[in-house]
Structures are given as structure tokens and as C-alpha cells.
């Protein structure tokens, strides 16, 4: 039961309002895509869900985001982020070994037993479809992997702390088409176990991987429906203009 309910969310950078009265229900074990042109606030919205915006001094948010009926604005962000994992635009593995990258999260959350850690690392790498490529070299530095492999390692690292929600912030924007296809397959496979929210500037990608799509423009949620409906019969003129490539 991990649905996310965003209620009357307003967000500001200093004086500038970047999200306006967002209301959005994100279903559990589904892939929800957030699309929109650059600067529309889609990354900001995603980062509200695990409160990564807290690190920006001038950022301020009002409203409510409930995960399992608990308002995350009132939660300890450290506990929240254990429950809500995130994968970033650019792969950002730690400058450590492949094993250490995946084991890092479980370790800081108190798992010390070597065999338990081994099991977690194995499972996470398998779930991230990376195991076969790295199983012989877990002790190698993660920075020796290709960009696509690094990004799947970051997904494995996020899975290792057994989150319920995974946020993906344009996870393929720095990757080649083959790596992108692998990550997209992975996203579809992962929704069996996780609630996934993906921000993407690539509309084909949203159409391929997501069940629901939200279209954001200048901080307003313009349209939100199941993906097929949004792409085939958009209700709003602005959505239609965007997905047919008239702007953006």
C-alpha cells in the first residue's frame, strides 16, 4: 500500500513560484511519468517527494504530500528517504567498489552481517539487471563501469535499502540508446514491486514505460490521466500542442 497523494502543493525558489496548487494521486505499483518542457517544475515536483529540495536554502514548499496517509512534510527526512529511493539524471556512483556502492545504504541503516550484505548486494544487482555483467568484479571501482552500467548500479544501490517508492529523475538523459532501452525494460520490470515516478523530457519514453502521465507547464499541472489517453486523446489544447511537438 504505497500510494502518494499530493495535495495543494505550492513551491517557491525565493520569490519565484515554481509549483502551483498541484493535486496528484500516484497509484501504487504503477509507473507514473511527469513530462513537460524544461523549467516547468517537473524535477522540483519529484524532489518534493523525498524532500531533496530541503538542501536548497531559498526553497520553500506549502501543502501536503501523503505517503501511506502520513504527511512527509512532518516526517524525519532521513527516514523518508530510506522509504523513497532516488536515481539521478547523471549516474553518481560513489568512488568506491561496486560492492561497496550497493552495500553502503544497508550498512548505514545498521546491517553489519557479512552474509546478509552479500545477499542484499546479489539480489539488488540481479534486480537491476547488472549482476551478469559485474559478478566477477565486485571489488573493482564503480567508476570503471560504462555510463549505462553506472546508472543501473545506482538503481541497484537504491533498491538495496528496500524502498517502497523509486523516483527517477531523467535517468536516461546521459545514456546511449542501447543503455536507455535496458533501463526502460528494467523500469517496467520493477513496477511489480515498487511504486515508480519518472521525470522525463522524452515523450516516447513516457509512452513506453508509464501507466499514468502528468503534464506540467510553468508550474501548473495541466493534465493527468492514464498514459494512452493522454497521448491519444488529450483533453487540453496545451497538452496536445506539447505532445505533437508544437513547442517544448
Amino acid at each position, binding site marked *: 500500500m504505497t500510494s502518494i497523494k499530493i495535495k495543494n502543493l505550492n513551491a517557491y525558489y525565493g520569490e519565484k513560484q515554481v509549483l502551483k496548487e498541484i493535486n496528484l494521486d500516484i497509484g501504487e505499483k504503477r509507473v507514473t511519468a511527469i513530462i513537460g518542457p524544461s523549467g516547468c517544475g517537473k524535477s522540483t515536483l519529484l524532489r518534493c517527494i523525498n524532500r531533496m529540495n530541503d538542501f536548497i536554502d531559498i526553497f520553500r514548499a506549502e501543502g501536503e504530500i501523503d505517503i501511506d496517509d502520513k504527511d512527509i512534510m512532518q516526517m524525519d527526512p*532521513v*527516514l523518508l*528517504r530510506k522509504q523513497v529511493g532516488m536515481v539521478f539524471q547523471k549516474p553518481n*556512483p*560513489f568512488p568506491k567498489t561496486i560492492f561497496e556502492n550497493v552495500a*553502503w*545504504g544497508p550498512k548505514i*541503516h545498521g546491517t553489519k552481517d557479512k552474509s546478509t550484505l552479500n545477499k542484499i548486494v546479489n539480489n539488488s544487482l540481479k534486480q537491476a539487471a547488472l549482476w551478469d555483467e559485474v559478478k566477477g568484479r565486485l571489488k573493482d571501482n564503480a567508476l570503471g563501469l560504462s555510463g549505462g552500467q553506472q546508472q543501473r548500479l545506482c538503481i541497484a544501490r537504491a533498491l538495496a535499502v528496500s524502498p517502497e517508492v523509486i523516483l527517477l529523475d531523467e535517468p536516461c538523459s546521459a545514456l546511449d540508446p542501447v543503455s536507455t532501452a535496458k533501463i526502460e525494460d528494467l523500469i517496467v520490470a520493477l513496477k511489480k514491486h515498487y511504486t515508480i515516478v519518472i521525470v522525463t523530457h522524452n515523450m516516447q519514453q513516457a509512452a513506453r514505460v508509464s501507466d499514468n502521465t502528468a503534464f506540467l507547464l510553468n508550474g501548473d499541472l495541466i493534465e493527468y490521466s492514464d498514459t494512452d489517453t493522454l497521448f491519444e486523446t488529450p483533453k487540453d489544447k496545451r497538452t496536445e500542442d506539447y505532445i505533437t511537438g508544437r513547442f517544448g
Partner: protein
Amino acid sequence: MGRLKDAVIEKILLACALISILTMIGIVATLLFETINFFSEVSIASFLFDTKWTPLFKPAHYGILPLINGTLIITIGAAAVALPLGILTAIFLSEYASPKFRQVAKPVLEILAGVPTVVYGYFALTFITPLLRKAYPETNIFNAASASIVVGILILPMVASLSEDAIRAVPRSIREGAYALGATPFEVSTKVAVPAALSGILASFILALSRAIGETMAVTIAAGMMPRLTLNPLEGVQTMTAYIVQVSLGDTPRGTIGYQSIFAVAMVLFIMTLGMNIASQLIRQKYREAYV
């Protein structure tokens, strides 16, 4: 015309660059020349292994061990003060302090580095030593502990400032990755940022230590002029630099063995600090490749 001007400017700049290189060569040549003279009278074995250093009295002994001992005891003591404090300061400044606080704190820290070292010497002698003597009445007026503490304070800004630079150079994206896994700021700094910056931090340690080895005024004032082969920090010791000061200020005539001995000591000092600077360079190069 323009081309001629360019050529002249180039020559002038080259001359400027050559000045520092030639100075360096001159210094090394002087050291080498007098050192060779020194070793024509004193065997290298007795220089390295004799346990007494009394070149100015009879019977003369030329064992540098007491001086190296004095230098090392103060350097190690200074490291014990400066390294933990410096790294903790760096972690605080890079991870916890608000930008406003850092803007004030960093310059203040660097002012500490600008205080003349003779002032540190008197600070040790008139403030730290009396405190030590209250705690340990057997403490000598001139002692290694007081000098260690003050040299530690003196190199602290260097460790803190350079380590802070190294920690802050760790990309923000790597920190975000750690925060997104539910890490606390302390875990992010000690388990991701500091390890990633480790070679930069080590380089700062080595640079600070070579500064401690070469420190002169403060240790001469605080630790005294008595070459002793001792591990007791409450006794006075003489460092290599303090010995050089003693002979330079005294009436030891040029060309005598006593005069030449300061060059031999300076040579040892030079080799030690050069070695440490090279080590720091090597570590820095490695650090450049740590995250790309």
C-alpha cells in the same frame, strides 16, 4: 614593432622565472659545498649514529640524532594537535556551517596563519608553559610539549583550510546520492565526502608536517637550545632549525667545523622537507583521478 615588443616581454618574463630557479640552484649548491667540507672531517657514520651533538664544545660529538629526535618529537606532537582538530574543523566548515559562517570563519582561520611565528613562541613560553607547569610541576621552562602545542596551533589553519577545499571539491551529485539513501549529514561527510577527498586531505597533512619540521622561531623560543636524546616531552630539546639559529647568531668563525655543521644539518632538513613535498605532490596527482 609589435613583434619586437612581444619578444622583449617574453625575455623579461623568462628572466623573472629564471631568478627563482637560479636562487634554488644557488641554495642547493651552497648547502652541498659546505656539507662536503663538513664530511671531509666528520664521518657519515658518526654523523648518523653518534648519540651526542656537541660540535661547539670539547670533546666534540657530531651525532645528529638528538636534533632529529627534537624535530620529530615536536612534529609528532604538533601533528597530534593539528590533524584531528584540522580535519574536524574542515568537516564542520564544509558540511555543517552556513555559507555566512564559513565566509567569516575561513578568513579568521587564515589570519591565524599570518601571525608571526615569534609571537607564537612567546605565547608558548609565557602562556602554555606556565599552564603545563601547573599540571606537571616537573616541566622544564623550555620543553617540547609546549612547542608541540604551539606548532600544532600554527599549522592547524593549513590543515583545516586545505582539507576543507578537498572535501568541498567532492561533487555535490555524490553527496546527493548518499542523502537519497537516507544518510545523515554526519554519515555523508564521514563515509562519502571524507573518503573521496582522502588523498587531498593526506596531501594537506604532509604539507603541514613539512611546515612543522621547518618551523624555527617558535620552537627555538619554546623548546630551548639543549640537544637531548629523550622522549619526555616535558624536557627541553633542540631542533635542527634551532641549532642553525644558535650557530648563526653566535660567534662561530667561518670555515670552522662548527660553522660547516649547520650546512650539514640544513641539508638533512632540506632532504626531509623536499621528500615530504614530493610525497604530497604524488598524492595530489592520484587525487585528481579519484572521481571523474
